[in-house]
């Protein structure tokens, strides 16, 4: 099937980013004692050296998966607000699984871990879908509440019963090195999970636009009444997009453990769930825009972190900058609507 998105999407995203950077340049002299240096360290972000570049790309990969998780939920007309808990649970289940099967050969363990994490995430998010199906419970609320309680529970587990007493961190024990994903650019964190993410983009796109289930999911998401009228079993599509979304979030958590942290550390995946929403929106809920969207988002995040280290850039300003981009990208302001109507 074909997607009907016009090229103006790229244009509007470009304009949004340019506007955000412009806003920063205008505001910097007011907020920083050394605006030039701050701007330099911000824009240089990932380009400072290969180490930064590797970490940057690694994060892009993880964000792609989180973004894809949200895209599938959005395409199915569902709002999964539980990404935080699902990623965290994916990370923990991966760790626990691999710690409990030390004898498995590497690749089998990895595949098993991905399945376990995906299943865990799918179960958690799918529950919200089932609740919606049975009692019309708002999935936005139920997924959020479920996730919040999970985050605290896992925090407790990692800092209590499951904590590795030999570590100085609030962390579980580390997984065996045979289960760790090959590193691509040591000493940076970049590993095979980036390629997995790119593969998932392709799979996600294929699923949404070239399978009958994807067609049913999208039609239900776009117009539930129309889907019902056409005989699509719409009840099922309260569950399916949520489960797929949760599954992908789980995989994001899993790959983070397999390639980056090798253990579940308290709060280490924090933010991935929320950022998935932001990235999905920047990508205009389309898998093929995920790579640029994740790059843009990570670049801004990275730049802000960098500028905080190397200049007197404040964390809040970084957050404001991200907010500006998100706002501009997601707001469908009238100018573009006119363009779109004219088919430009």
């Amino acid at each position, binding site marked *: 099937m074909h997607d009907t998105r016009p090229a103006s999407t790229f244009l509007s995203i470009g304009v949004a980013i340019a506007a955000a950077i412009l806003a920063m340049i205008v505001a910097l002299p007011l907020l920083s004692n050394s605006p030039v240096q701050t701007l330099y360290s911000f824009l240089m972000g990932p380009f400072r050296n290969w180490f930064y570049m590797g970490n940057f790309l690694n994060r892009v990969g993880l964000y792609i998966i989180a973004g894809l998780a949200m895209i599938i939920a959005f395409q199915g007309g569902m709002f999964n607000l539980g990404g935080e808990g699902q990623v965290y649970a994916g990370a923990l289940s991966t760790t626990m699984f691999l710690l409990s099967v030390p004898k498995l050969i590497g690749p089998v363990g990895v595949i098993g871990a991905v399945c376990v994490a995906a299943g865990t995430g799918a179960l958690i998010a799918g529950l919200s879908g089932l609740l919606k199906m049975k009692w019309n419970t708002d999935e936005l609320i139920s997924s959020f509440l479920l996730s919040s309680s999970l985050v605290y529970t896992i925090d407790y587990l990692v800092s209590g019963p499951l904590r590795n007493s030999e570590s100085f961190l609030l962390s579980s024990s580390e997984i065996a090195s045979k289960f760790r994903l090959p590193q691509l650019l040591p000493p940076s964190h970049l590993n095979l999970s980036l390629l997995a993410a790119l593969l998932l983009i392709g799979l996600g796109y294929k699923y949404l636009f070239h399978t009958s289930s994807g*067609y049913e999911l999208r039609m239900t998401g776009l117009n539930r009444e129309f889907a019902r*009228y056409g005989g699509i079993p719409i009840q099922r599509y309260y569950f399916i997009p949520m489960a797929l979304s949760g599954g992908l979030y789980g995989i994001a958590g899993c790959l983070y453990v397999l390639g980056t942290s090798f253990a579940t550390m308290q709060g280490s995946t924090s933010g991935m769930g929320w950022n998935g929403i932001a990235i999905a929106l920047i990508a205009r809920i389309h898998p093929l825009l995920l790579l640029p969207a994740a790059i843009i988002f990570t670049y801004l995040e990275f730049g802000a972190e960098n500028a905080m280290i190397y200049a007197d850039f404040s964390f809040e300003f970084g957050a404001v900058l991200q907010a500006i981009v998100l706002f501009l990208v997601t707001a469908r302001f009238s100018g573009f609507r006119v363009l779109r109507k004219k088919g430009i």
Partner: protein
Amino acid sequence: MGNIDLVDITKYFPENGVIANSTVNLRIEEGEIHAIVGENGSGKSTLMHILSGLIRPDKGSIRMNGKALRINSPHEALEQGIGMVHQHVQLVREFTVLENIILGREPRTWWGRIDSPQARSRIQALIQEYNLQIDLDRPAYELSTEGEQKIALLALLYAGVNYIILDEPTTLFEEDETDLLHRVLEKLRSHNYTLILITHKLREALHYADRVSVMRGGRRITTLSTQELSQGELSNLMVGSDSIPGQSLKLQKAQRTPPKNLPPTAPPTAPQTATSTTAHTTPGHVNPSPILQLQDLTYRPGADNAALPALHKVNFEVHPGEALAVTGIRENGLETLEQLLSGFLLPSSGGILYKEASIAGLPIRELRSRHIAYIPTERLLRGASLDSSVAENMILLNYRDFHGWGRLKKEEIEHFTGNLKQLFNIKASPKDRLSGLSGGNIQRVIISREIINSPELLIFSEPSWGLDIAGREFVFDKIAELTSRGSAVLIITSDIEEALECADRIVVMYRGSVNGIVQTDQVDKAEIGRLMLGVNSYA
């Protein structure tokens, strides 16, 4: 205050190509009750929306005592003392009745707080005066339609208007409360209000109004004093029985061979009640079994869809090769019938038999797999996904044919959608977003999808909705094509001419019951008009 003149009002809606008002001139005299009657789409509501500032005319002016008024918004109309009680009132659901009434005109205390006691006492006085009992402290979302209209009327009185337009005001009151409506209207008149009633209920117009204006096809046909008129005369004026249905239509009907084995139908001169009609159309042994059979189909709306009209013991049958139209005025049960037959709603009692098996309560997917096609009134909300591509809209019923192992086969889909595009002369690429197409092309996409699989039964609601003449012909051709191949078409339409033009038999609904079943070639428009308006049941 004074007489209002609407001068040369013309309004064209380019989006559906309808000329709603064509140089309409109308005088509303101060202090009168003036009824405006007409069929659906006759332009009566548009005209009043123009007077109340909701719509701006393309041409023409509004004058009060000869002086041109500037009315560009409902707000400016209110400033001139003109207000309208709409059929479907817009309220702030979370506000109380009181808050809704005073919205925008809240009395303030000297430091800016809303002076509710003052507002309350003023409104209580109005409620007493006009006997419009309503609890001021209930939130608006708890109210029924009539409660909403009471609020709207109170709000206008509170705002101090002089001219009140009431759109279908009998929905304002329950059936047994119509006396109350009469009293309210008389009271308003005695307080020197000028009242305009928009209605399609002739009895109501003749009963309450001093003068009545008849609208038809966007023009004002005439204005008469109600003393000079009978219901029959008014009905003839409304449906325009003086004009015989078009010549082309006659020709078309003659060319079409009517199905030979139709059941006997009721003679057109003696409209039947629901029960006696059943006796008439129950097929004898010579008839083939009907494809669709309604048996005492009854629907009583529950709390969550109170806006849907009820149905009482509806009986009729549709036979293979037959085009049957169900017609009636809006809110007499057509919309309910559509929901029931399409599987979106469950009947309260009675049966829907399709090929002699009950289909009530079956999932829509099952109905679809039994070759029941359905083109809904809500073309754009239910019948199409505007944000999807043309191709995605076309394959809704067939996508399962194109998959292997869950994968959709691109080439087969392209072949299929290309075919539909050609067969139905759709001027768009399958890749285009549907919302970018013209109304006529969107219709073609929907129709092509529904009839390409040769359905055994097509439920077709308002077939020529929003179509121009060419589009209309196209649709009627398709209906004739289907019936000639032995399919049954059930047309649900509020347009008499459409029913006459494309159906073999017509079922006329009135107040949720069948008021008569007539054979198209043995009936004239006026007769159907009378059945639609329920004239016989008041005779």
